[in-house]
């Protein structure tokens, strides 16, 4: 949980300063007054107020509101379902326009997921992973990749040639590595640099 102490001439001013530094609104924090301060008789005797401002840890709520804002601004009609499990947040988007938020090969979905993760983790102390899916796209993609891996492994074994796949993001490569790790006849590795890193499937001698 993120919290900071702030001094100000008055309690209100101290809270104000803390909110600005945290970049959150009043509804998103708990305020504890450590010292109410005093105006003093003359300004010489004035004492600053001190507050402790803590960002309320409602990650699921934050993610829901953040995505609602974005989806509104993009003028797409989808519903947002947010689930929190440990330090993971799972989001499922559903609706007639969800394809627009998925994009080619999930490119838009990845961008949305990446930016939501950044925005959320800016407000938290421990790292929270955000996973966004649209109409079950990630599950379908995973199955496609596993089928592809098995098909190409067969081909590699038959021809004895190396097979290089197209560039993929890290989690997609992991799906392929995992799918083939128990196949004793082939090995897989990645080559190249992100974002063009690609998998190579090779038959073992």
């Amino acid at each position, binding site marked *: 949980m993120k919290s900071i102490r702030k001094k100000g001439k008055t309690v209100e001013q101290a809270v104000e300063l803390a909110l*600005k530094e945290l*970049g959150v609104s009043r509804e998103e924090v708990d305020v504890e007054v450590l010292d109410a301060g005093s105006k003093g008789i003359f300004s010489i005797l004035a004492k600053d107020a001190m507050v402790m401002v803590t960002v309320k840890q409602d990650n699921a709520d934050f993610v829901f509101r*953040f995505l609602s*804002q*974005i989806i509104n*601004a*993009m*003028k*797409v009609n989808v519903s947002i379902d947010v689930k929190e499990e440990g330090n993971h947040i799972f989001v499922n988007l559903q609706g007639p326009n969800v394809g*627009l*938020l998925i*994009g080619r090969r999930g*490119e*838009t979905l*990845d*961008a*949305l997921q*990446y*930016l939501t993760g*950044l*925005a959320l983790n*800016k407000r938290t102390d421990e790292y929270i992973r955000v996973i966004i899916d649209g109409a079950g796209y990630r599950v379908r993609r995973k199955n496609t990749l596993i089928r592809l891996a098995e098909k190409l492994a067969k081909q590699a074994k038959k021809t004895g040639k190396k097979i290089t796949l197209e560039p993929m993001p890290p989690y997609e490569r992991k799906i392929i590595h995992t799918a083939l790790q128990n196949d004793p006849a082939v090995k897989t590795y990645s080559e190249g640099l992100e974002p063009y890193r690609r998998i190579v499937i090779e038959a073992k001698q």
Partner: protein
Amino acid sequence: MKELVEILAKALVDRPDEVYVNQVEGEQSIILELKVNPDDMGKVIGKQGRIAKAIRTLVKAAAAKEGKRVVVEIIQ
């Protein structure tokens, strides 16, 4: 479109009150000029431009619906 860039940038920077987006409209394209506090430049660009790329991807998706070409420029 302008609103989308504003929401994204404000959520990423340390000084959301210093995020400005200026929309320049052309016949077929729209240019969105994003300006943030100099200390926040890295927060909207990211390593190897990864954050900027993600912002552009979302804007492109939103723009495709309206049939316009939208360019996001991060200015100093």
